[in-house]
């Protein structure tokens, strides 16, 4: 069967077909871009943070009275928290990883701001940090208790040893990737910092930062009066330990302010909230747009069948088989879908180009376009299937009857 009769019938009643084609074109443009952006965001949210973020909580603590012994408070709190049942380990820190708040500095491979350089997010903490965070030490050693400086005054510069992530160290020493331990880095005042240990992978403060995995742990606590505690619990005991820790901290010393306890998971969700909102909204839009396109195609095919019962009856009466009728309608639908898809490809590329240009989003991956085209073809045929079958059921006797 040729396409000629289909084409001529489409030409005579073009408006409906054209509308479906427009709809398919718009659908393709929206769906391809929406699915692409959604998959980008899901990949971003699914990156492993390197830390045991599902089993940790954090809280700020501040001393406020005159002559308040800040370091005695930190030591006593730490000893108490680490002894509590259900606690794996605890650490003092200036910031919470993944929270969106933090500090960064620039370090260099050579003194006098020379050599390779990179910004790095840093955490001032003690020797329990590696175990509390649950990060994997790939090489070297953790710093020891004697390395930790308790600074009563806000001094510039880091202590002489540090634990850093591999991603950071490799930027500074690209030629010594297997031999990073013992290398010396320099701050902008040319003060040396020796790499004691290398963390395989860990996320720092800002999830939107492209250097998120460049992190430095420095053995320094102070000067107060405020600090944050980070506590890692055994799996499944987070809620119970949080409640117990809050009560114990308040009871141990009422002369300081114990801030709000929050899980690190909650910080993480909060940091990724806009990504997840975008992903959810776009997924919903994708689902709806596909549903309505399918319903639209279905509705129009049904309408075509209904208005052509006499024509179908006549064709059946002069010898067309049921199969011919089905394939006629499927072919008609295929033609319309193809027109829509061709226009839609151009539109999808234009939208993708415009989005990446205007909003600094990554350029549309063409695999998504191929997938979208195949998907819409299948969707179109699927939506036309039932009306085509109904058309095939039209009795040849219809030819002799009036509607």
């Amino acid at each position, binding site marked *: 069967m040729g396409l000629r009769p289909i084409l001529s019938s489409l030409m005579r009643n073009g*408006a*409906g077909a054209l*509308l*479906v084609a*427009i*709809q398919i074109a*718009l*659908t393709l*443009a*929206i769906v391809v*871009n*929406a699915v692409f*952006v959604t998959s980008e965001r899901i990949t971003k949210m699914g990156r492993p943070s390197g830390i045991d973020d599902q089993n940790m909580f954090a809280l*700020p603590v*501040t*001393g*406020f*009275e*005159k002559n308040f012994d800040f370091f005695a408070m930190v030591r006593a709190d730490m000893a108490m928290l680490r002894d509590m049942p259900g606690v794996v380990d605890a650490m003092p820190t200036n910031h919470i990883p993944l929270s969106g708040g933090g500090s960064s500095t620039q370090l260099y491979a050579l003194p006098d*701001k020379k050599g390779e350089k990179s910004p790095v997010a840093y955490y001032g903490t003690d020797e329990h940090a590696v175990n509390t965070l649950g990060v994997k030490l790939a090489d070297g050693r953790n710093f020891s208790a004697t390395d930790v400086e308790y600074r009563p005054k806000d*001094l*510039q510069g880091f202590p002489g040893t540090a634990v850093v992530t591999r991603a950071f160290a490799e930027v500074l020493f690209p030629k010594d990737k297997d031999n990073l331990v013992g290398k010396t880095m320099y701050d*902008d*005042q040319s003060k040396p910092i020796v790499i004691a240990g290398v963390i395989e992978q860990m996320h720092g403060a800002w999830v939107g930062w492209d250097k998120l995995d460049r992190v430095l742990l420095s053995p320094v606590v102070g000067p107060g*009066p*405020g600090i944050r505690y980070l506590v890692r619990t055994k799996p499944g005991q987070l809620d119970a330990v949080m409640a117990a820790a809050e009560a114990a901290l308040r009871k141990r010393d009422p002369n300081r*302010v114990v*801030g709000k306890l929050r899980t690190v998971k*909650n910080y993480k*969700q*909060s940091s990724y*909230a*806009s990504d997840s*909102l*975008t992903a*959810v*909204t*776009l997924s*919903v*839009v994708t689902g*709806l*747009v596909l549903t*309505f*396109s399918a*319903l*639209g195609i279905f*509705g*129009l095919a*049904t*309408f075509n069948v*209904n*208005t052509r019962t006499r024509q179908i009856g006549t064709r059946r009466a002069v010898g067309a088989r049921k199969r011919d009728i089905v394939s006629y309608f499927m072919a008609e639908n295929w033609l319309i879908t193809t027109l829509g898809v061709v226009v839609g490809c151009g539109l999808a590329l234009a*939208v993708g180009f415009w*989005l990446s240009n*205007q*909003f*600094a*989003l990554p350029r549309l991956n063409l695999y998504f376009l191929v997938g979208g085209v195949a998907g819409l073809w299948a969707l179109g045929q699927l939506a036309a299937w039932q009306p085509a079958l109904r058309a095939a059921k039209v009795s040849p006797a219809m030819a002799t009857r*009036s*509607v």
Partner: protein
Amino acid sequence: MFAYYLRLAMQSFRRNPGLTALMVMAIALGISVCMVTLTSYRAAARIPLPHKNEMLYAPNVDSWDPANPYDKDNALYAPDLLTHRDARGLHASTIPDRKLIMYKAGGVLSGGTNGSPEYVAARMTSGDFFPMFETPFLYGSGWNAKADEGPEPVVVLSKETNEKTFGGANSVGKTVMWHDREFRVVGVLNDWEPAPKFYDVSNGSFDDPEKIYVPVNWGQIMELGSDGNTNCWKTEDINSYQDFLNSECIWWESWVELRTPAKVAAYRKFLDDYVIEQKSRGRFQRPLNNHLYTIEGWMQRNNVVGTDNKAMLIMAFAFLAVCLVNTVGLLLAKFLNAAPVAGVRRALGASRRDIFWQHLTESGVIAVAGGIAGGLLGIAGVWALRAWYGRFVQDLERSLPVDYSTLGIAVAISLAAGIIAGLYPAWRIGRAAPASYLKVQ
């Protein structure tokens, strides 16, 4: 005639309830998705104090690294914060009608009659903050220039802080302890939640306002650093608070009130003169790059609306377009299906215009139904998002408000869209020759 058309429309809906429901649903979903995205867009794009948009200005000067622009993606931007020295330098100008310099600090608040000590965020600011930003007062008032200079130990509490610390009673004249120092309460703000928090977008456009307000000079006496962003570019020996104050680190904010265009021009000239004078002392080695932003300009400069927000709004309206094309197709099918009825009406004397209006009325009814359903669905959607994200996003009431005025917009958009969608099918059916339908009947 309209009532008759409405009755005909109802009859037509009863003939094809499924198809009608599908059209209403298509419009409703298109509208509701638009409403949800529009709600968050409008919340972010709202300009607080619109009547002062042409009066309040944020001055920006480019004190950044000679070797690198502050913002690599947009080299035309000067830093969004000021150094302490420049904040003081700009504050010395006598041109503005009102002026303020400020930063964000934090510390433990205690004392009062109720509650326990708590770490609170404080806005260290000049007293002009209150009249410039028109903050509402529940009790008392702000402080004057003399209190700024002293500085006098005065403090303004937020309504929430007053409730926690004094049980909501009039606390003017009472004292609180902050950073272990005594401050006298001179005013208590009423509910005031500027969204976006335009005067401090660099620390979070939808953050809570600070809990207390303290004369800015106390910050230097008490050696308080910034609880907000601090950015530095220069290698400097910073070993004391005084070193920090004199450094090239940026952490201060400034706003000025300039009521006449002449003052705006004069202040622009002052900014240029200031920077040129600083250049002669070896600072400000970047090209002259001064800005004076209105509130609106400041929010654009800081991308308060956000990239995702804009892209999402466009996606939502594209989705609405699909829904409308869908509706046009379905309307066309429905009308043509019932063409014989129109044929009979034409034969009995109805004009083409009558047929056109009759069918347009029908699509209008579908549009209004879709608009109302979509509006309600949209509000439900906003509620659902807030219920879901409220668990880990603190400032959601402000970034995603339930805005019932958007409901009106939804119905209006929907009605317009429905009528546009109905135009072609209604016109088409009106043109059908009656004879062809009458023949086979």
